[in-house]
């Protein structure tokens, strides 16, 4: 039910047009890239999908995390703008439920975005290349991996937005985080664990397990941070 309430709250704030716009834009990147540059050379890659991801994933991820940052700021802005958050705190609900509801909501929306993007990648693979029989499995594995690596970024963006009552402050901090993430070298394991840098990683058999473990650990740490933040906020209010 919390998820449905979040869907309702996101009406008329520009969230849904932003979702559709960013999904279409990100999905258009591999298609436009091939049309403009001619066919991408995938002979060096293991598969057409890996070649396409290598050529486009950085830009697509950049759009994804910018969408997450803007969404998190916008969703909390609607809570703070007309004092709705205070009303929620006077209702018999768990104080963290607003946060978890929003986490679920943005995660599901990110899943939709990734679905559109991976559909575009599948289209490019079938239209311009000849994928192997295991293509669908490979596509699903990459999809799941990308989604999981996106989740710590979702939770951190929401934590930042929850702490900042001004939308401009949370959006500013998130955008700075996005730019820091783009400047970090992706081949440095420790640096690439920054939650906003993690989604830039692509499925790579050598590093898959460490990155999956890192994403799960980050999720756990961020959720515990939220629990502590609720207690601190209550005690200092």
């Amino acid at each position, binding site marked *: 039910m919390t998820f*449905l309430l979040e869907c309702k709250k996101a009406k008329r704030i520009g969230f849904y047009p932003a979702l559709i716009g960013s999904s279409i834009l990100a999905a258009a990147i591999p298609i436009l890239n091939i049309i403009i540059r001619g066919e991408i050379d995938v002979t060096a890659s293991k598969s057409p999908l890996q070649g396409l991801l290598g050529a486009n994933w950085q830009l697509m991820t950049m759009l994804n995390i910018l969408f997450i940052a803007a969404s998190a700021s916008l969703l909390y802005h609607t809570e703070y703008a007309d004092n709705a958050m205070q009303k929620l705190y006077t209702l018999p609900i768990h104080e963290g439920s607003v946060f978890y509801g929003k986490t679920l909501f943005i995660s599901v929306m990110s899943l939709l975005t990734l679905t559109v993007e991976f559909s575009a990648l599948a289209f490019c693979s079938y239209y311009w290349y000849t994928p192997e029989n295991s293509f669908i499995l490979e596509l699903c594995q990459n999809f799941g991996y990308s989604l999981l690596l996106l989740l710590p970024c979702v939770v951190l963006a929401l934590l930042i937005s929850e702490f900042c009552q001004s939308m401009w402050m949370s959006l500013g901090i998130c955008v700075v985080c996005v730019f820091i993430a783009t400047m970090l070298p992706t081949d440095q394991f420790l640096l690439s664990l920054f939650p906003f840098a993690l989604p830039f990683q692509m499925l790579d058999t050598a590093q898959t397990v460490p990155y999956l473990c890192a994403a799960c650990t980050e999720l756990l740490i961020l959720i515990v941070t939220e629990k502590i933040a609720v207690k601190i906020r209550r005690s200092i209010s």
Partner: protein
Amino acid sequence: MNIIETQNLSKSYAEFHAVSGISLHIPKGSVYGFLGPNGAGKSTTMKLFLGLTQPTGGTFTVDGMQYPENRIPILKQIGSFIESPAFYGNLSGEENLDIIRKLLGLPKSAAAEALELVGLTSVRKRLAKKYSLGMKQRLGLAEALIGKPPILILDEPTNGLDPVGIHEIRELIRSLPQKWGCTVFVSSHLLTEIERMADIVGILNHGHLLFEGTLEQLKSTAIKKGYPTDNLEDTFLALVDADNRQSERGCMQ
């Protein structure tokens, strides 16, 4: 029987004492008027009951339940309106109430009933951000009234309403104990409003409870102390003035 009781309830911010050891007794089924000048601690006291701010001393019980152990069961008993109306500006009045209705697990009809009570049915589809100040105030009241809670905590509920609106809301508040058997804890700086609404009054100044009792008891206390009793305003001003002078003397000593 008292539905809300406080024992030496206090709230301090560093050196500032917003509420200083007050002991309130709010009888079940009454309209309790909470009076005090700006900054007396009325809103802080109400926020303490709702868990929006934490007490630095003392305790309170709501319907026999101790805070903070029973925060959720206590909040289930209370409908509230604190300081200013709270809403989602991007949603209509009806959608705003629907969100609260769903969170409280109430039937669909509850939102329509609350809108009807505050006279917003005709504008229920309009976006809340496009409401006038009075309509926003009514929406805030509807959010407090939804589900007919046994306790209502209303902080300055008639702010921003025109005289007709003030009269309507006053009559509504006055009628609630008989209609639903609910208890209303209402604050206002409009003394005439409280005089017309409340069965019992509590007067707060600088966080101290100066008086608690019926209006008749207030009158007899004022006569004993030599304060004017022509109307509530004169009595209130005399009480507050005496307390202010006493505080100043205390500070000088």
